[in-house]
């Protein structure tokens, strides 16, 4: 990949929350890059730090109770060190965000048109009439069939799918380079979900923006993503192009997740269950393989002392070495002789 394609580079990011005067890292040493015209999916279960990662990028966390260390490089500037004012000039213009719950993300007392216009007023020097035209154009672009009427309506008058379209219209109003979509379809029905995902892809093809898609739904990832990063307990444990990850998952956590999905295409009677629970933020093991406690039948020698990401094939990174010796508990031990390598 050419470096010019790179939109965003996250280097060794730590985001910690303060609990009784101690900071606990919810995002622990995460490095990622986002390229132009790419959908990067970040997957993980609740509490793995995926939303914290997104809000750190766009600077929406409460600065009094969080600590952000590391670099979030956008156009050679570090977003992590920016002041609120500097961030305001970037948010909405260069980086914008799509939220999960479209009703609570919209102001219930403002007309749809005015809400879309807001970021145009802030970031552009269009005249009032030009802005109005742009609002109609945007509503059309996100597939709303009668934009003039919708622009005059209030959020409660629209259905969930329409509201999410409005949110997307707001997000793309200033043609941002980067769109962060945090569970954009979780609150929607499947048929609406399919429409919204198709819309996101179409818009991306038009604008060439880079999209960070945060989701827990592996089906959504398989439908739209180009590259996938799987997070567990604040760390990225596997990163690969989408085909590679789904056809050739390596890390025990990724493989366990795939096995616990009730799929349409297969008839299995029992689903795989991951033993134990996700450790809470305060009780995270900060050294060694964080997944080791949940695959206790894998001998300790299989894990690295300080697990790092290893490139197993071009673009495919896996943390720790335990994947080489991993087998599901129901299977017989495939590799009895474990060498610490």
């Amino acid at each position, binding site marked *: 990949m050419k470096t010019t394609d790179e939109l965003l580079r996250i280097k060794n990011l730590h985001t910690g929350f303060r609990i009784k005067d101690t900071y606990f890292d919810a995002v622990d040493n995460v490095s990622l890059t986002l390229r132009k015209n790419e959908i990067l999916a970040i997957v993980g279960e609740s509490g793995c730090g995926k939303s914290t990662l997104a809000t750190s990028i766009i600077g929406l966390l409460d600065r009094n109770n969080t600590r952000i260390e590391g670099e979030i490089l956008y156009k050679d500037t570090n977003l992590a060190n920016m002041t609120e004012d500097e961030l305001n000039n970037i948010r909405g213009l260069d980086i914008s965000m799509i939220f999960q719950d479209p009703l609570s993300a919209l102001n219930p007392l403002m007309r749809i048109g005015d809400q879309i216009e807001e970021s145009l007023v802030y970031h552009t020097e269009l005249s009032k009439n030009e802005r109005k035209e742009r609002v109609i154009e945007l509503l059309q672009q996100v597939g709303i069939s009668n934009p003039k009427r919708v622009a005059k309506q209030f959020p409660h008058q629209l259905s969930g799918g329409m509201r999410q379209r409005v949110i997307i219209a707001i997000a793309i109003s200033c043609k941002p380079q980067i769109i962060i979509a945090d569970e954009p379809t979780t609150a929607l*029905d499947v048929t609406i979900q399919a429409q919204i995902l198709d819309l996101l892809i179409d818009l991306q093809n038009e604008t060439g923006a880079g999209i960070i898609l945060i989701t827990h739904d592996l089906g959504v990832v398989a439908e739209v993503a180009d590259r996938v990063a799987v997070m567990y307990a604040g760390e990225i444990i596997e990163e690969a192009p989408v085909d590679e990850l789904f056809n050739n998952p390596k890390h025990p956590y990724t493989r366990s997740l795939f096995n616990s999905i009730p799929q349409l*295409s297969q008839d299995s009677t029992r689903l795989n269950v991951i033993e134990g629970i996700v450790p809470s933020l305060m009780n995270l093991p900060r050294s060694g393989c964080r997944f080791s406690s949940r695959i206790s039948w894998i001998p300790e020698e299989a894990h690295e002392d300080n697990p790092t990401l290893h490139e197993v094939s071009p673009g495919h990174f896996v943390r720790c070495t335990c994947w080489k010796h991993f087998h599901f508990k129901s299977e017989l031990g495939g590799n009895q002789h474990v060498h610490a390598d």
Partner: protein
Amino acid sequence: MFMQIDNLKVHYPVRGGFFNTVVDHIHAVDGISMEFDKGNSYGLVGESGCGKSTTGKSIIGLEKITSGKIIYEGEDVTNKRRDRKSAYNRDIQMIFQDSHSSMNPRKRVQDILAEPIRNFLNLSPQEERKRINELLAIVGMPEDSKVKYPHEFSGGQKQRLGIARAMATNPKLIIADEPVSALDLSVQAQVLNFMKDIQNEYGLTYLFISHDLGVVKHMCDHISIMYKGRFVETGETKEIFEQPKHIYTKRLLSAIPDVSPNGREERKRERINVETHYQKEHKLSFDENGRVFDLVKVSNTHFVAESPKVKEVI
């Protein structure tokens, strides 16, 4: 067949006008019929607002029935649903979507579990304690959890306590309204496996209400697809997934993301194809008021809502 629902209707009045009179009705559930066999699982699938939860609630008696009958073991129980003395009330139990808000936060687990026992089974305090321990063992929770409060448990554990409460009276039918949609994948798998286990052990019947077709396919033998308060298609799981007849079913199936990136371009084309079909044939598939047609027999188990005029299925 131990239980039967016959032409169930739930209409909500819409009030308005000067005297706040009833001006219209919302047809939340508009004439559905179901039959339940022992030990089987029945799925009720549909988009939000289609009336699937209302169906579940009206069967258990949390919702008034406008018309229709519920026949339980040969007896009409439509008006006895809230009667504590009736066996129906004991034998039909429910698991809720949000296990957290369905439990009293000020009660300990032992009191939560004791409530159905005290209501329906006349047990001495010793027997009651024994039964609570049994229930906790059934759902695989340690015995000391009975002195804890609901907030001390994780989401999956709370859902299991919800199941334990539903199991307390040895029910025949459990209505599960989106039991796993608030849970993470790995926890969801745990709860689903576990629900299957107790079904096999106790011969339970499930009515599984969900919007997630993957989960329903995994759990159920028989699926009904609901739209605007009526069934558009009902049949064995295999029939629904392999030979969907109604355009609405096809649209729903095509919208589900597959957990594999292979061939996603084709799936997208297929999806758009079905969607245009759906828009075009909307008039043919539903009557002039947008109401779903009556069910027509396709095979012994497979029924589809089809226009009496158009016999040709696309």
